[in-house]
């Protein structure tokens, strides 16, 4: 078992900096997701770990030892690619056995390992088939078996399920998680799908424009996104510009309590999750400013409802409501944020929370 460290890892393609000095430490047996929009450098970072791209600067260390001088075929890493990469002229058995044969193992050992790998991915009877006879999901499972059979120190997955349909994607995701737990292998999974990252990873590294914006547990990333990009990228978020004046944050014609540490005159961005916007009864005399608006759009999404509420001077806000709230499109509502984050310059956000009916207190 192994640890993986990326140290100031950088990749430049001509003038373009694809990966800009990223640092990541992945613990033994940890499942780390690198999450980011397309073109953020996440695949390039992964390919540098696998040895398919030469870093422009920085280091990749496995168990503390630098591997950047090793070519891809001598690194203790194994990769599952986004494309289907089973060799079409070989049977499934030979696809999996290919790497084992290179290691000059005995036929018996190879057979045992291949059967074990097929068993692991739930395709024990598929050895004699050709890749063309398998569905996309089955091919990616075999690709996983082919990677795992060599018992690599690090497992690398580059959006392996993004060519599959939604249902299959979810199923394979769960299988992958179970297999990874069973064999306890240090894993890096690259994806642009936040649901995939949130459900799979022990920790998530959010990448943007070649840089790692935040590395944390899924719940922490959701609750306190470190940067505005992460706030906007992960989950749904209402972002509102505001100015700090006299201990209050002025936004449009409304105001919110400002964190005490914030100096007057600074312009900030307020981030509010849709589920943190609470409906207040019209008659209720809430201590804090309430925002009057009208429901533009209501969407029933099964277990909850999503509303777009137009608040004059603030714009359209996303609000998640429980099914029990009786509302129609066009209704007037009053909103109040129960919890919000204040982003100022490039500092960590300040979190504000409103106790029910108690006004606003500084939380962190």
């Amino acid at each position, binding site marked *: 078992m192994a640890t993986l460290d990326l140290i100031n890892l950088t990749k430049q393609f001509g003038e373009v900096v694809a990966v800009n000095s990223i640092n990541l430490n992945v613990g033994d047996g940890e499942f780390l997701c690198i999450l980011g929009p397309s073109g953020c450098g996440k695949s390039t970072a992964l390919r540098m770990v696998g040895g*398919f791209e030469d870093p422009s600067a920085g280091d990749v260390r496995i168990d503390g030892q630098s591997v950047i001088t090793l070519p*891809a075929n001598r690194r203790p*890493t194994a990769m599952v690619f986004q494309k289907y990469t089973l*060799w079409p002229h070989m049977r499934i058995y030979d696809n999996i056995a*290919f790497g084992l044969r290179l*290691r000059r193992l005995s036929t018996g050992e190879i057979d045992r390992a291949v059967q074990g790998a097929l068993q692991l991915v739930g395709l024990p009877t598929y050895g004699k088939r050709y890749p063309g006879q398998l569905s996309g999901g089955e091919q990616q499972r075999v*690709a996983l078996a082919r990677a795992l059979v060599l018992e690599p120190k690090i497992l690398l997955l580059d959006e392996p399920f993004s060519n599959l349909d939604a249902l299959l994607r979810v199923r394979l995701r769960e299988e992958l998680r179970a297999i990874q737990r069973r064999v306890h292998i240090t894993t890096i999974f690259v994806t642009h799908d936040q649901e995939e990252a949130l459900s799979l990873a022990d920790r998530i590294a959010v990448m943007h424009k070649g840089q790692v914006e935040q590395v944390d547990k899924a719940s922490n990333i959701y609750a306190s996104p470190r940067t505005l990009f992460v706030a906007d990228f992960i989950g749904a978020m209402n972002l509102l510009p505001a100015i700090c004046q006299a201990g209050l944050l002025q936004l449009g014609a409304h105001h919110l309590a400002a964190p005490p540490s914030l100096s007057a005159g600074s312009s900030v961005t307020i981030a509010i999750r849709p589920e943190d916007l609470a409906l207040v009864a019209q008659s209720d005399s809430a201590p804090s400013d309430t925002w009057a608006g009208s429901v533009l759009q209501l969407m029933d999404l099964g277990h909850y409802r999503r509303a777009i509420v137009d608040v004059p001077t603030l714009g359209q806000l996303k609000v998640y409501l429980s099914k029990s709230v009786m509302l129609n499109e066009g209704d007037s509502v009053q909103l109040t944020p129960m919890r919000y984050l204040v982003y100022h310059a490039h500092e960590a956000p300040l979190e504000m929370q409103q106790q029910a009916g108690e006004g606003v207190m500084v939380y962190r």
Partner: protein
Amino acid sequence: MTPSETAEEQATEATRPKQTSVNLTLRAWLRVLRRESFGLVALLLLIVGILGPISTVFLWAFTERWRYPSLLPTEWGIKYWAQTLSRADIGSALPLSIMLSLVVTGLSALICLPAAYAFARMRFPGRQLLLLSFLVTNAFPRFGLYVSIAIVFFRLDLVGTVPGVILIQLINTLLLMIWIPTSAFQGVDRALEEAALDVGASRLRVFVQITLPMVLPALGAALLLTFVSTFYEAQGALLIGLPNVRTMPVLMYSLINNQVIVQYGAVISLVLWLPSFLLLAFVQRFLRGNAVTAGLGV
């Protein structure tokens, strides 16, 4: 509406299904004929245009006497087969042709296949232009090209020599041997090669065990087509080879030109036709994934 009318209508109602089904089959046939009329005409033209001349060659090869008003030969026989095949010049031309075709195909592969791999896998300035340049030899009247080359070859003492013929025939093979393998190599996804590197294979092993098997059908097709087209090549061999180097097609030209006896030409035509027919039938089995059409559509 009178009751009789209703009855009549009911009667027609009852008989209608049968009538329509008959009408339908007839109409369906007519529709097929109309839809396929282009195909049928094309088929007819093919029969007249291709099978016609070929069958004449067949007939002549087995004819001993064929006088004017008769539609078919008046005397059949294989006398001319024996006469033609026992000719000394044929005895030397056939092995020469086979040897030339093998050498030209081999040299062409040696030169073109690495080039095709480079075209497919590397990005270098002028790549597209270079690829197109191989079309040039096929875009101009070839005989003009040969004449100007012949002048150069004459100064180099290559006219009338086997190396001279090999060189001139190599030019013909370039397009096929570069374009088909280039598109075949391009068809191999780089990720497949990376996956093999990833499990520990060396670059050479990746090429031999992953890339090569996947392009083999297309390479086989290119090799066979090159062999066959070289075997048939007459213009270059005629201009550069004569008087010393006489390949089968050259011999056929001179026999047809110099002899009044049609049968010599017919027999040689059939002798030349047979190996290439067998090879092309073999190629057909190789042409998975339309390697040739893909190759020409780079």
